[in-house]
């Protein structure tokens, strides 16, 4: 008679308890960043759509609302099941990227998104999360053969295929995020240092080929503007191109914000000197309007988020969870550092959005789902621990 009672208790715990075992600090950081994002996008775009000053703010809020619901659903979801679906997920990832090529071809132009009436679906954004989930699954399967060179080369191949496809779209930023995810998952799994050393060597060779050898032989791998981005940030003062212009205007915006910001006098944003002020350069708007204080606050929220993500990694109940958490952490970290670094002139311009803050439905919704997955890992870990204690 004992057994049924136990089951009943467990069922109860699964349905309502999982919500209670989420990480409250992570939730605070998420809500804080989302709110800051809607507010900043709103102030930055007051004059962009004439007659509708809140056009972008309302849309961003709608995306956040959808994302938030999806995040809560993902929190309740048993993430371990994703491991079994890794092949399907990986196929969907590659398929959605190829579909965009097909649609772009039919429209006779390059495309990054599938257009729906109210929403442009950017497959490469959702692809970031899909790749984490699939790669972690493939990694767990080969966890006993980590020292095999074959394991490492397989993993590299699995990540490089989608990365190259999106870089050719051309979406260099998302491709680099894919590679960062790969490195993080292999690193957490315990791939030997020697393999990393080998990969680093190969990467160096590849960069030399792409930037120097291939152009010399007449083959352009990167589009000229992508190369400009890489080189312009090295000395923005001398360069007169579009990239240097963006970096200079961004530095002027952030610098002129001073300690507490220029508020309504934020001319860099308001007068449109700052390009892409609601997407890639949204952090420059924070810097100009709210100064060092505002920028530090936003960065602190990101630091809190990344700390809690790393902590979730360490308590995950199974290895798959640890790898997924590691991949998501890397995805967030890389995007935050490269995006913020780009606005303050220490990273090249790569077209990577600032998670949760930059305007864009695909990015916001994907990031919120990723955080939901972290919460699911966290909740199940706490639950397992609780069961053990019983």
């Amino acid at each position, binding site marked *: 008679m004992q057994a049924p009672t136990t089951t009943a208790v467990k069922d109860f715990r699964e349905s309502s308890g999982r919500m209670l075992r989420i990480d409250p600090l992570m939730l605070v950081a998420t809500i804080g960043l989302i709110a800051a994002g809607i507010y900043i996008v709103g102030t930055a775009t007051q004059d962009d759509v004439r007659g509708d000053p809140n056009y972008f703010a309302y849309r961003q809020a709608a995306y956040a609302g959808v994302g938030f619901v999806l995040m809560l659903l993902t929190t309740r979801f048993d993430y371990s099941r994703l491991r079994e679906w890794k092949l399907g997920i990986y196929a969907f990832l590659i398929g959605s990227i190829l579909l965009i090529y097909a649609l772009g071809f039919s429209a006779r132009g390059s495309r990054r998104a599938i257009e729906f009436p109210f929403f442009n679906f950017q497959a490469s954004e959702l692809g970031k999360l899909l790749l984490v989930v699939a790669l972690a699954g493939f990694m767990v399967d080969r966890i006993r053969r980590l020292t095999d060179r074959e394991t490492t080369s397989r993993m590299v191949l699995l990540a490089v295929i989608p990365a190259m496809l999106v870089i050719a779209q051309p979406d260099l930023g998302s491709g680099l995020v894919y590679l960062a995810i790969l490195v993080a998952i292999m690193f*957490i799994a315990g791939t030997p240092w020697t393999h990393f050393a080998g990969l680093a060597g190969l990467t160096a060779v590849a960069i030399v080929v792409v930037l120097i050898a291939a152009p010399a032989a007449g083959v352009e791998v990167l589009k000229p503007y992508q190369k400009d981005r890489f080189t312009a940030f090295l000395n923005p003062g001398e360069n007169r191109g579009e990239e240097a212009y963006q970096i200079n205007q961004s*530095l002027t915006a952030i610098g002129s914000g001073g300690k507490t910001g220029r508020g309504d006098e934020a001319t860099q944003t308001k007068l449109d000197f700052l390009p892409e002020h609601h997407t890639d350069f949204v952090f420059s708007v924070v810097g100009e309007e709210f100064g060092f204080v505002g920028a530090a606050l936003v960065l602190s929220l990101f630091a809190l988020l990344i700390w809690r993500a790393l902590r979730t990694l360490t308590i995950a109940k199974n290895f798959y969870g640890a790898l997924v958490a590691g991949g998501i952490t890397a995805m967030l970290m890389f995007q935050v550092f490269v995006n913020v670094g780009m606005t303050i002139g220490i990273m090249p311009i790569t077209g990577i959005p600032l998670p949760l803050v930059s305007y864009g439905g695909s990015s916001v919704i994907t990031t919120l789902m990723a955080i939901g997955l972290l919460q699911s890992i966290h909740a199940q870990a706490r639950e397992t621990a609780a069961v053990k204690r019983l």
Partner: protein
Amino acid sequence: MYLDNERRPTLTPQLAFRVAVIGGVALVMFAVIFFRLWYLQVLSGDNYVAAARENRVREIKVQAPRGEIVDRHGQPLVVNRSSMSIKLTPDKLPERRADRVELYRKLAKLLDLKPRRLTRRVERELSALPFAKPTIKQDVDPRLVAFVLERQEAFPGVEPERESLREYPHGPIGAHLFGQVGEVSPKQLKDQRFSGVEMGDRVGQAGIEAEYDRFLRGRNGAARVEVDALGKLTETLRRRDPVQGKQLRLSLDLNVQRVAQQALAGGTGKGAFAVMNAQNGEVLALGSQPSFDPNVFTKPITKKQLAALTSKDLGEPLLNRAIQAGYPTGSTFKLITATAALESGHITPDTPLSDPGSLTVGGVTFENAGGVAHGVLSLRQALTVSSDVFFYQLGRDMNEKGMPLQLWAHRLGIGRKTGIDLPGELPGRLPTRRWRDSWYKKKLTDRPWSVGDNINLSVGQGDLLADPLQMAVAYAAVANGGRVLRPRLGLRIEDATGRALQQLDAPTARRVKVSKEHRDAILEGLNGAANEPGGTSTPVFEGFPIPIAGKTGTAEHVGKPDQSWYVAFAPYPNPKYVVAVTDEAGGFGADTAAPMTRRILAELLDVKETGLVQGGGAPD
């Protein structure tokens, strides 16, 4: 050692180390960002504030010229003219209102404007749209532009801008078709069709310009320039050249259009015409009299000019009577009555009916025009001599369940829009029992539907409202075996050299069933009307070398002169063209509309005419 998917006991030392490495990387990067922000914002913030205050980069929009519009042979109809306009740049204007008013005073004096009015207009525009650049004056003399440019210190915030304006080399020829270009409205900016258009851009606001705006519209260029503290250009940083819009080729034939408008102008002053290919719906000419010179719209129009263009006394020149005015069509409607009677089985082409000169129904007597009696007739003869009594009988007999006359008139496009690629078309009115009864209920008319209404409709009198284009479409449908064409003006999109980029497909036609036997009988009757002794327009077309078929019409208006109509097919018996002409006060169809049609057909079919065409012939 943990297993694949098993629970992990505790954090292994190796994993702990690696997580610590990631945490360390994050820490270092956050530290770098914080130091960099500290350096930028706290240590050197003041320098950047100064840099932002005097940001010297300006973006100048370079307006793209619109595509030109040419006729079917490539003759230019609407072209561009480059001009300079003087605009204000709001953020460089003096901050004090008094200084600005002084500036407006100087500008008004220079450009010959009224200072008070200029001040009021510009200040209102500035407060309504703070970032838009108000235009002071368009199409300014280049010498004045140079004067302002050389004295930028005296005219702060005043900038000349190159603008391309529309020009209509043929003046009033085709004026009703092209429409106008004007600044995009805030409401339009939200519309999907205007995506890519920016505040202050000029887009098609009416006519062909509006219908084909997305092709004609170009892509604006931009130049990013660096300026000094006085706003003078010092260096161009980057430029994107404007791309001209695509050229639009119309099916219109400029020569036919010109001849037709001249022919109409020789009439009583008000009228309209439509010339259409009866097989594919291409419109070769479409116009309305009186016309106007569209060049007046390229500059801000004065109240007086606008009043003249819409004045009733001057015949409302802006009204496009070919698609926007509805008229009774007189006997030209008999083609529709004949089709309805034949197709609904009331008569065959050879059914004899007697025409004693009048018909009495319910105590009301309906007479032939002129009171002549034509005797016993079949359909062909009835069309040739335009016997009213013959068609009165058909109208009386078709006032039955199903209302075949209205059914067929509706099928042939009466009382509905033709769907031509011109905005502003009106449907007209097809009188029906339901329409009149509902008006009667609302006390808009004095009596309900009666058989007399149907008798009136059978000869195109009474409450019918139709325009020349609708008649052309109905006639073409009978001639081409039942295809109710959607008339169209746009032929193809091409580049500036005339190379085709995109064919504009002919819209699909609605199909109705008109048997070959019936069609032939009707066309024979109409051929007789223009050709045989006794035909209503035979004298007008005497000596015309190409056989045609045509129907006269005389619409009666209470208290006003009769309206003259003529609708013709050419060449007979396999017509390529249909021409419909009306003159609002032209008298009998054969008096004015038929001779006008002859002039149009002569141009259309390349017939060299000698001497003047004389009007006159039998009443219809």
